[in-house]
C-alpha cells in the first residue's frame, strides 16, 4: 500500500498545472456550451488542449494522446478542475464512446474518428434513449434495415446530450426485428448531417438546449460505420455504459474541488447569520458530510485505479460508483445553495451585459441530472442488489 505519487507523477502534475494556469480561460469567458455560440467557444478551447496534447492524455500518441496511465489521467483531471477548466464539450465522445471504440473499432474506424474526436473538430452525441425506452433500454424500437453497402436507419432518439449541435451520433438500432429485447441490436456511428436526420433541440431546466430529440427517416449509414458486429449492439453498448458509470466519466476532481469551495463558502459565511460555523449546527454538518463523501470518492477511485492497472475489470461496482458520485454532486451543491439562503436563486452578471446562473446554481442544475442519466439510480440500485449482493431478480 502506497498512497504517494512518484517523482514522475509529480513532474507530470507540474507540467499540466503550468499549462492549465496559462491557458484556461477565466470564469465566464466562454459562453454556455449549451448555446450555439458557446458550443463553438468550447470547441476552440478543446483545440488548444489538443494542440498541447492535454485533451486525451491516456490515448495513443497517434490520436493526440500521451499514452500515459490511469493515474496520470486522474492527476490531469485534478489539475484541470483545480485550474477551473470549462466543462468538456467533447465529453460524450472522449469519455463514453472512446473506451468502446478502443475495444471494438476497426483500425480504419479509429483512423477516421479518434483524432477529430480528440481535437473537438467532431463532437459526438449519444443516441440511445427513446420515448419508450429509457431505463428499459432494451425496449429500443428504432430500426435499421439492410440495403446495398449499408443500412437505412429509422426511428426516434431522445435526451441526446449535445444533440442540438453535435456532428456525429453513436446509437443503437434494432437490426433484427424478430429478436427479443437485448438481442438483434446493432451499434452505429452516424453523421448528423446525413439526409433524413432531423434534430429538435429541447430546452433543459436552465432554458438552454443541452439535449435534443433526433428523428431518423431512412438515414443511410455505410457498413463501415457499424461498431462491433451486427446483432452485438447490446454488448458493445454495455461497454460504454460501464465507462459512463465507472471512473472515466466523472473523475473525483470535480467533486473534491467543488467540496473545497463549499468549505470555503461555509467559512466565509458570517457567524451572525445563523451560526453556520458552530460545528454542531446542521448546515456545518451537511457541508462536512458532502466534503467527506467527495474525499471518499477520491480514495475509492485510487483503489479502483490500482485494480484496473493490475488487470482487474470494473463490473457491477460501476453501478455503486455512479450512485455515489451523482448523489455526492447533488449534496455538495444543495449545501451551497442552503448556505446562500434566499439569494441562491439570483442570477449574476455574465460580464457581457446580461445575467447568468451563478456557479453554484448552474452546478446544482447540472448535478440534478446525474441521478437520472446513464441509467437512473433506481436501476443502479437494482444492479448493486442483484450483482453485488446476489439478490434474486424480480
Amino acid at each position, binding site marked *: *500500500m*502506497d*498512497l*504517494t*505519487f*512518484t517523482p514522475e*507523477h509529480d513532474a507530470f502534475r507540474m507540467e499540466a498545472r503550468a499549462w492549465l494556469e496559462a491557458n484556461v480561460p477565466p470564469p465566464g469567458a466562454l459562453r454556455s456550451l449549451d448555446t450555439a455560440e458557446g458550443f463553438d467557444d468550447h470547441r476552440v478551447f478543446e483545440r488548444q488542449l489538443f494542440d498541447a496534447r492535454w485533451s486525451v492524455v491516456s490515448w495513443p500518441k497517434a490520436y493526440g494522446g500521451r499514452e500515459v496511465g490511469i*493515474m496520470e489521467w486522474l492527476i490531469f483531471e485534478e489539475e484541470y478542475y483545480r485550474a477551473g477548466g470549462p466543462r468538456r464539450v467533447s465529453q460524450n465522445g472522449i469519455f463514453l464512446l472512446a473506451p468502446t471504440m478502443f475495444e471494438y473499432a476497426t483500425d480504419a474506424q479509429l483512423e477516421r474518428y479518434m483524432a477529430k474526436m480528440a481535437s473537438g473538430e467532431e463532437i459526438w452525441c449519444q443516441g440511445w434513449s427513446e420515448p419508450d425506452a429509457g431505463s428499459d433500454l432494451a425496449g429500443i424500437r428504432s430500426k435499421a434495415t439492410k440495403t446495398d453497402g449499408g443500412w437505412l436507419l429509422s426511428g426516434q432518439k431522445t435526451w441526446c446530450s449535445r444533440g442540438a449541435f453535435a456532428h456525429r451520433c453513436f446509437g443503437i438500432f434494432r437490426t433484427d426485428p424478430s429478436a427479443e429485447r437485448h438481442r438483434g441490436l446493432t451499434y452505429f456511428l452516424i453523421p448528423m448531417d446525413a439526409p433524413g436526420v432531423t434534430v429538435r433541440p429541447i430546452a433543459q431546466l436552465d432554458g438552454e438546449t443541452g439535449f435534443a430529440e433526433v428523428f431518423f427517416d431512412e438515414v443511410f449509414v455505410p457498413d463501415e460505420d457499424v461498431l462491433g458486429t451486427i446483432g452485438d449492439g447490446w454488448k458493445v453498448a454495455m461497454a460504454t455504459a460501464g465507462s459512463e458509470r465507472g471512473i472515466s466519466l466523472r473523475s473525483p476532481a470535480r467533486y473534491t474541488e467543488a467540496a473545497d469551495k463549499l*468549505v*470555503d463558502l*461555509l*467559512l466565509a459565511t458570517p457567524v451572525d447569520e445563523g451560526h453556520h*460555523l458552530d*460545528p*454542531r449546527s446542521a448546515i*456545518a*454538518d451537511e*457541508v*462536512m*458530510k458532502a*466534503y*467527506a*463523501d467527495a*474525499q*471518499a*470518492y477520491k*480514495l*475509492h477511485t*485510487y*483503489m479502483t*485505479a*490500482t*485494480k484496473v492497472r*493490475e488487470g482487474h475489470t470494473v463490473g457491477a*461496482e460501476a453501478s*455503486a460508483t455512479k*450512485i*455515489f458520485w451523482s448523489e455526492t454532486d447533488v449534496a455538495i451543491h444543495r449545501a451551497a445553495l442552503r448556505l446562500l439562503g434566499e439569494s441562491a436563486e439570483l442570477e449574476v452578471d455574465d460580464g457581457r451585459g446580461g445575467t447568468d446562473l451563478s456557479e453554484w446554481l448552474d452546478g446544482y442544475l447540472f448535478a440534478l441530472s446525474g441521478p437520472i442519466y446513464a441509467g437512473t439510480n*433506481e436501476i*443502479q*440500485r*437494482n444492479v*448493486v*442488489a*442483484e450483482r*453485488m*449482493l*446476489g*439478490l*434474486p*431478480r*424480480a
Partner: protein
Amino acid sequence: MRFSFTEEQLVLRDAVTAVLADWCTPGDLHELYANDAPDAGRSHPRWNALFNLGITALHIPEVDGGLGLDDRELIAISEAAGRVALPEPLSETAGVVVPILVASGAGHHALEPFLDGGGAATLGGVTFTPSGPRITSVADGDRVRTSGITQATASHHLLAVSSASGPELHLAVTADGDLTRTTSLDRTRRLGTLTWTPTDATRLASGPLAATLLDQAVDRAALYSAAELLGLCDAMITLTAAYVSERKQFGVPVGSFQAVKHHLAGARVKLEFARPAVYAAAWSLATEHPSATHDISLAKSLASDAADEAARVSLQCHGAIGYTFEHDLHLLMKRAWALSAAWGDARSHRARLLNLLQAERSVLPS
C-alpha cells in the same frame, strides 16, 4: 501509488480469519450473552488462539521479539475481527495500547505481557471531542475512578488521568484495582469501572509526551473502531442478503422486491465508499503522514454512518425475526451501535474535520 494490500498482508489476514471462524461463531456469542465468563479476555481459549498468532505483538519491533509490522497489516485483521463481532480487544490491544507503549519508549517489561504473557489491553479514562481528548477519570481520594472501560476483564488498561501538570498516561493492571462491572446493551463489551492507584510504577508518560500520546491513542481507537465497523457492516449486509433471498412472501423471495433491494443496495454503497477511507487512514498513520488526523476523522465518520445504515436496514429487511434475542442479527447490530458512537461519532468527527480545515486555511498565505 498502489492502493491495495500486498499478498503477505492478505495471507496474515486470512490466517486470523480462519482462527476467528473456528473460535468466534454466533453460537459462542449467544453463549457469552447467556453466561459471561469472568476470565474472558484473559485466559479464554479464544483469546489464546488469537494471541498465539502473534497479533498483539504486531507493532513491536522484530529486535524486541515482535512482528515488526504496522497498521497496514492490522487494519485488515481488525476488519475481520469486526466481521465476527469478536468480543476480545484484539484491535485495541494490538492497534491502540501496544503501539502507544512502543511510542512511549516503555521498556521490555511493559511489552512483555503482549509478547508472551497472553496480555489483552484496552484504553480508558478518555473520550474523543472535536477539539481534542477529554479525560474522564476522576479522583477518588488517593485513588482514581475510571469508568466506561471496555473489556474491563482484560489484563491491562492504558488509562488517562489529569494531574496538576497536565495529562498522564498509566498502564494499570486490572487485578491491582477494584473492578465494578456495568451492564450495557451489548453485553459482550463487558464495560466496567476500575478504581485504582496511580503510582510511579504505573506511570508511562506525563507532560507534553503524555498529551501527544493521548492524542495518538484516541485517534488509534477511532481508527480501529472504524475498521471493526467495516467488518460489522459487511457481516450485517451479507446476513441480510442471504435471509431475503430465502424468505418468501407472496410466493417469491422478499429480496426480489425493489423496496428491499434498494435498502440493501444503499447500505452496500455506503460500505463500498467507507472502506478505502479506513485503509487510507491506516496508511497515513503507519507512515506518519501529516494528514493522518484528517484521514482518521474521515474514516470514522464514514464507517460510523455506514454501520448505522447497515444496522437500520438489516433489521428492517429481516422483519420481526431480526427483532428477536435469539437471532444472530442483534449480536452484530448492538456492537455496531456501540462502536459507531465510540471514540467520536460521525458528527463529532465531521466537526473535527471542519476544525482542521479551518486551521489549515487560516495559515495559508493570503
